[in-house]
C-alpha cells in the first residue's frame, strides 16, 4: 500500500496541522418541536488540514507525484496521523494486542507497567503495526528499574533495527529511530535480559525521527490504512527557489 510521503526532515506533516473529527449523527425534529438525535450508520470521518510552507522542490515534487499517483481523491493510501500514537493501548500493556514472551509477566504499577522476565532468554512485550512501507518512525518509552540497572532493547522487526539503553532507578528515555524496508506489518518490541525487571511508561510510536509528547492511544492506532485526498485539485504557490507553499486536506473513516 502506498503511504503519504514524509518531508526531508522525516515529518509527515507541517507544524501547522489541524485534525477535525466529524461525527455521523442523525437529528430529527418533529412538528411538536422535539429533537431526536442518534448515531448514524458510519463511525464518522477524520480530516487533517495541513498547511505546508517553504517546502523544498524535491519535497513538493514528491507530494505532487503522490497526488498524481493517487489520481487526486480517487485512490486510497496509508496516512500516519502526526498527532496520534501509532501503537494501540500504550496505557494498558495487558491488552491482547500486546504479545508477551514466554516467562514474562506484565503487571500494572502506579506509574506504568512492570515487566518481569523469568524466562530463560531475553523477552518482553511486542506489538504488530500495519506499516508496510518505509517511513521513518521513532519508537520510544521511559524506563526504570526497581532493583539493579538493566539493559532495555527496542527493536523494529522488518528493518532489523534495534537500540539498547541501560537504565537505573530514575526514569530514562530509550528510543529507536529508523526506516522500515516495506516488507509488511512490522513488530515493535521491548525486550529485557533473562532474570531482570523493568518498569515502563509513555510508550510511543510516531512517524517522525524524534519523540514528541506521549499521547494515550486508548485502543486506536494513528495508522489510517484507507485515507484519501479531500480535494479534486492541489494548489501550490511557488515563491522562489525551494519555497513551495501548499495546503493539503486528507480524510479517512474514523
Amino acid at each position, binding site marked *: 500500500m502506498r503511504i503519504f510521503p514524509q518531508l526531508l526532515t522525516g515529518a509527515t506533516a507541517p507544524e501547522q496541522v489541524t485534525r477535525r473529527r466529524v461525527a*455521523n449523527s442523525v437529528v430529527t425534529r418533529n412538528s411538536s418541536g422535539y429533537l431526536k438525535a442518534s448515531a448514524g450508520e458510519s463511525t464518522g470521518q477524520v480530516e487533517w488540514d495541513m498547511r505546508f510552507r517553504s517546502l523544498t522542490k524535491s519535497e513538493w515534487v514528491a507530494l505532487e507525484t503522490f497526488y498524481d499517483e493517487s*489520481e487526486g481523491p*480517487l485512490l486510497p493510501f496509508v496516512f500516519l496521523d502526526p498527532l496520534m500514537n501509532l501503537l494501540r493501548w500504550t496505557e494498558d500493556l495487558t491488552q491482547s494486542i500486546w504479545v508477551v514472551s514466554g516467562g514474562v509477566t506484565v503487571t500494572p504499577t502506579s506509574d506504568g507497567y512492570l515487566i518481569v522476565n523469568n524466562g530463560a532468554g531475553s523477552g518482553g512485550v511486542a506489538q504488530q503495526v500495519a506499516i508496510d512501507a518505509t517511513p521513518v518512525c521513532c519508537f520510544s518509552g521511559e524506563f526504570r528499574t526497581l532493583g539493579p540497572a538493566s539493559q532495555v532493547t527496542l527493536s523494529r522487526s522488518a528493518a532489523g533495527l534495534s537500540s539498547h539503553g541501560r537504565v537505573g532507578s530514575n526514569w530514562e528515555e530509550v528510543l529507536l529511530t529508523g526506516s522500515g524496508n516495506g516488507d509488511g506489518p512490522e513488530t515493535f518490541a521491548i525486550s529485557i535480559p533473562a532474570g531482570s525487571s523493568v518498569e515502563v511508561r509513555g510508550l510511543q510510536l510516531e512517524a517522525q525521527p524524534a519523540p514528541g509528547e506521549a499521547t494515550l492511544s486508548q485502543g486506536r492506532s494513528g495508522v489510517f490504512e484507507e485515507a484519501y485526498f479531500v480535494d*479534486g*485539485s492541489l*494548489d*501550490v504557490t511557488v*515563491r522562489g527557489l525551494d519555497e513551495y507553499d501548499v495546503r493539503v486536506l486528507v480524510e479517512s473513516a474514523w
Partner: protein
Amino acid sequence: MAVLHLKAKELVWVRRQRRSGVEVHRFVGGATQRARTGAPLRSWDVLAYVEGAVASYWRDRFDELQGPVQAFEFEDPESREVSANCHFEEGGVAVEASDRGPDVRLRLRIRQERA
C-alpha cells in the same frame, strides 16, 4: 503556434493548480462515490516583473488568440514543463506599473482545457 513562455526578470509567485479530473460525491450518512471525469489538467496564476516589451508581447498574444478563445501551448515559468491546449482566462493578461524603473508587473492567468 510556438510555445508561449514567460521571460521574467523576477517571478513574484507562480500559483499552480493541479486538477485531478476526479469528482467526489458525498451522500447523507457518510458514503462517498468517487469517479474519474477526465484527464488531469493544470491552471496558472503568475505574477512577475518583466520588461515593457515582454508585457507588450503578452498583450499582443492575448489579442491575437482572441482572449480565451484560441488554444496555445504554455511553458510553466517555474517547472519549464510544457502543457498543451491552454487558454487565457477572461482578462488573463494584466499589466501594471511598478516602482522598478522601466519594468512592469505582469499577471497571467491561464487554464488548460480538455482537447
